[in-house]
């Protein structure tokens, strides 16, 4: 976190007068703008796909649940077929949770979609 170290540097400066304070405010403003920009960039390519924010919200609502459910189902079936209870359920529930989180992050545009990997 580069911002964290810079934050410490700011804190060490004595807040002597109004000028210093306004300069710090300006720096803070710049850093806030910088901090906000990556998230905008991240959602940039997705914006063309999801013009409506509500649509994206609806999309995310079930992604996590679906991942966990599929993981649990696969684990349970493997347990029944191979008789390795409860290891299939444990392993695939965790994998399913990971897949669900991945789905949500893809849907939110935090992680790039698969096809963009070059």
């Amino acid at each position, binding site marked *: 976190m580069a911002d964290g170290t810079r934050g410490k540097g700011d804190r060490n400066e004595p807040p002597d007068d109004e000028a210093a304070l306004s300069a710090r405010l300006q720096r803070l403003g710049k850093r806030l703008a910088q901090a906000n920009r990556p998230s905008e960039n991240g959602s940039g390519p997705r914006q063309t796909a999801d013009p409506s924010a509500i649509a994206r919200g609806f*999309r995310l609502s*079930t992604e996590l649940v679906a991942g966990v459910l599929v993981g649990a189902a696969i684990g349970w079936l493997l347990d029944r077929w191979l008789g390795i209870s409860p290891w299939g359920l444990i392993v695939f529930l965790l994998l399913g949770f990971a*897949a669900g989180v*991945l789905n949500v992050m893809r849907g939110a545009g935090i992680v790039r979609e698969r*096809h963009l990997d070059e």
Partner: protein
Amino acid sequence: MAVDPIHQFQIQNLFPVAKIGNTEIVFTNSAAFMFAAVLGITVFLVGATSGRGLVPSRLQSAAEIAYEFVATTVRSTAGNEGMKFFPFVFTIFMFVLALNVIGLIPYSFTVTSHIIVTAALALTVFFTVLIYGLIRHGLHFFNLFVPKGVPIYILPLIVAIEILSFVSRPVSHSVRLFANMLAGHITLQVFASFIILLGTSLGVVGWIGGALPFLMVVLLFALETLVAFLQAYVFAILTCIYLNDAIHPGH
């Protein structure tokens, strides 16, 4: 007065069609409403395009807006190459939209509130992606599950997660539409039944108090109208995103 918010989702057998083995194939109210949706879409599109005026009529502009809307969605999500799937996406969008909107009419039946219908649609999309991807890219299609630049020692874990993520798609695709329609219609019915319950149990005071749940029903109905459109849109856009994987997997 008994209130059963689930009653509206009951499948009723209308008349038997055929019998295969021990399974009887029956024409149900669900099938009837699906036919109604297809008929409605066909009448709308045929009627809209029969004039083909340079200055579009009202119906024609509605059809043009629907076309433009879906075409923009497909192009922006799956690229120009995705347009070969335009008929598929447009069919799905119009079908789901028509079913959702017909379901909003009081006393009608909401086909999309049955998971078997939405699951069938989602699985159709899923297998279209899988089969088209395999035909077009061969085994190279499975590179979809192998992200580039991942250290070899965590690759098996990542591949397992990617495969699970891929398999969970039809589940989230179908459950989203089904759950939203089901929950919305149950909420509407419950709030509407409050009016009757208040009125029949408290008399005049109850009927006046019933204005509050009535206001809720009006607001919820507006929300449900929005949801009906949005869910059809979300279903279509996810179809495009998934088809995009079949067209451009991993490179």
